[in-house]
């Protein structure tokens, strides 16, 4: 693919000496010699191993927890329950004022998804911690659970998360994020064709080769050094500070080296409880997810459902688009209210449509809490939008690429969420794609520009 001189000639700087030049990566020498220090490569004398007792139920009340047998297990040093966590109810995005706090570090009275952390066991060896965890007795009263977003939104559905009070995230705009632009019903009324389709996806696990975890060492100066593979260093530090009610100056986070993340390591899950364990025992603590935990416990990409209704003219113009998006947060918010909101901003795609109506819902179910993953909030939406574009082109008997040229946004166009389009390059990308893929389009599309009135 080529960056042709003709593209954006007025603003092009062609003194980009670094572009196209190979430069060695600064981290590669460590990788090829095995010297790169990942968090789990830190080992400290007397280090304890943390294992979690997890909920076997999707939704249940905890009647009682009995740790007495586990405490007697050889090698066990400390067992933690909800009452040991200074500020047990938290939510990651509280740092940017997106509440309410809705998730427990260790379950308190209730579990809301299968795999939820209930009791933390710290022992001299990984094996002892695992064996002792199996001896913790939790008495559950199983509650009805809901796994489907549309079922969860129906009246009378089991309430997943009491901190929200209803099975959706309440935005300042109400039960969903809303975008209103033009008059979508008038657009449909005047359209030659209407096409309504629904698209849905399942959760997707990032499956990094290095599992989630951290190693915490108490220092002589009353501080704690946390070696972690988080992708969100300062989110994690600040949330740990809140959860532990400990000033951030007591916490020294060391990271940045991540054995594969893909967005799966931006939640704050392992660090606060490991630091608490180190604080209460005075010993280094290692908390590393097993492969099974990485696949079953760590947040996946959210399941999504997207319903798109379009009004299109025979000449190829889309005149109205209505999108309803549902993001399955699972039992807790984590990053999903933000993901669903991103979806609202992202629709109706890189197209200029005069009449747009968008509702995006962040829905709570008793599934594994979902969170960030590569373009979360827009990736599944893009899949739905582009499949819809192909279907619309077919409906009116038009080439799918030419159909996109007709509707492509261009500089100066007002987007549905009231941001004027700037720096668009979709037309130029499609021109180059047309050549690269040998997918010919009419000459008039090859002479178009993202500048509406010519460069």
């Amino acid at each position: 693919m080529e960056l042709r001189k003709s593209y954006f000639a007025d603003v092009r700087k062609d003194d980009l000496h670094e572009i196209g030049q190979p430069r060695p990566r600064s981290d590669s020498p460590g990788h090829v010699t095995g010297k790169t220090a990942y968090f789990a490569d830190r080992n400290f004398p007397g280090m304890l191993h943390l294992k979690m007792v997890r909920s076997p139920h999707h939704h249940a009340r905890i009647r009682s927890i009995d740790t007495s047998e586990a405490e007697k297990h050889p090698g066990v040093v400390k067992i933690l329950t909800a009452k040991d966590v200074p500020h047990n109810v938290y939510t990651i995005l509280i740092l940017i004022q997106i509440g309410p706090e809705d998730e427990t570090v260790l379950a308190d009275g209730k579990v809301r998804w299968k795999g939820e952390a209930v009791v933390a066991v710290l022992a001299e060896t990984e094996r002892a911690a695992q064996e002792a965890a199996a001896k913790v007795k939790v008495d559950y009263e199983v509650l009805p659970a809901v796994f489907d977003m549309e079922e969860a939104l129906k009246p009378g559905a089991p309430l997943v998360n009491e901190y929200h009070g209803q099975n959706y995230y309440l935005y300042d705009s109400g039960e969903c994020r809303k975008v209103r632009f033009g008059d979508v019903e008038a657009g449909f009324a005047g359209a030659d064709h209407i096409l309504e389709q629904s698209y849905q996806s399942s959760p997707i696990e990032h499956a990094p080769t290095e599992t989630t975890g951290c190693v915490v060492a108490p220092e002589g100066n009353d501080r704690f050094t946390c070696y972690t593979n988080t992708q969100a260093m300062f989110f994690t530090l600040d949330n740990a500070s809140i959860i532990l009610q400990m000033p951030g100056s007591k916490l020294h986070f060391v990271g940045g080296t991540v054995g594969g993340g893909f967005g799966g390591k931006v939640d704050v899950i392992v660090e606060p409880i490991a630091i608490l364990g180190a604080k209460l025992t005075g010993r280094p603590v290692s908390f590393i997810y097993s492969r099974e935990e990485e696949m079953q416990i760590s947040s996946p990409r959210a399941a999504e459902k997207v319903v798109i209704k379009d009004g299109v003219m025979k000449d190829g113009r889309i005149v109205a688009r209505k999108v309803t998006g549902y993001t399955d947060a699972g039992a807790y918010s984590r990053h999903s209210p933000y993901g669903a909101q991103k979806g609202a901003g992202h629709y109706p795609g890189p197209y200029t449509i005069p009449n747009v109506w968008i509702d995006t819902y962040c829905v709570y179910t008793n599934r594994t809490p979902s969170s960030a993953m590569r373009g979360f909030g827009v990736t599944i939406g893009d899949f739905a939008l582009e499949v819809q574009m192909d279907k619309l082109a077919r409906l009116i008997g038009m080439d799918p690429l030419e159909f996109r040229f007709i509707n492509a946004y261009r500089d100066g166009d007002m987007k549905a969420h009231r941001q004027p389009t700037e720096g668009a390059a979709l037309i130029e990308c499609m021109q180059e794609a047309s050549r690269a893929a040998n997918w010919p389009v009419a000459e008039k599309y090859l002479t178009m520009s993202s500048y509406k009135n010519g460069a």
Partner: protein
Amino acid sequence: MAKVPVQFTLNGSEKAEFIDSGTTLLNALRDKIGDTSPKGGCHQGTCGACSVIIDGELRLSCLTLAETCNGTSIITTSGLAEAGVLHPLQRAFLDTFATQCGFCTPGMIMAAKVLLDHTPNPSREDVVEALSGNICRCTGYEPIIQAVLTAARSNSQNAA
């Protein structure tokens, strides 16, 4: 728990340790001896990140009990460079941008070394087959394959 003595050669040095019976070679190398170049990705023999070379053969150290390695000679990626000079495979991985997160890299290099030790001039298919037990979740397989082929070429040039 009763301790078991183990003794083997690691990258040319004699090592002796007392370990808990049942300790994997991966844990013995990482936690007891301090060679953290083999990585634990799955601990069930499916990802290849823990690959090491035992008596010339590629082995998964997460499925190998340390006590079965008595008297063997073990090679890991941390022992490949000689006097600070990178092994041709390490050089090739650098030059062809065959690392991303780097977590699979030591295992990949071990698998590639065993291939080149047995098959100095491999075909692309040979390389793909040899690396088929090693997962790169960053999915940077193409540069890794190119790195192994590049190393093979530089070896044969040096030999000529």
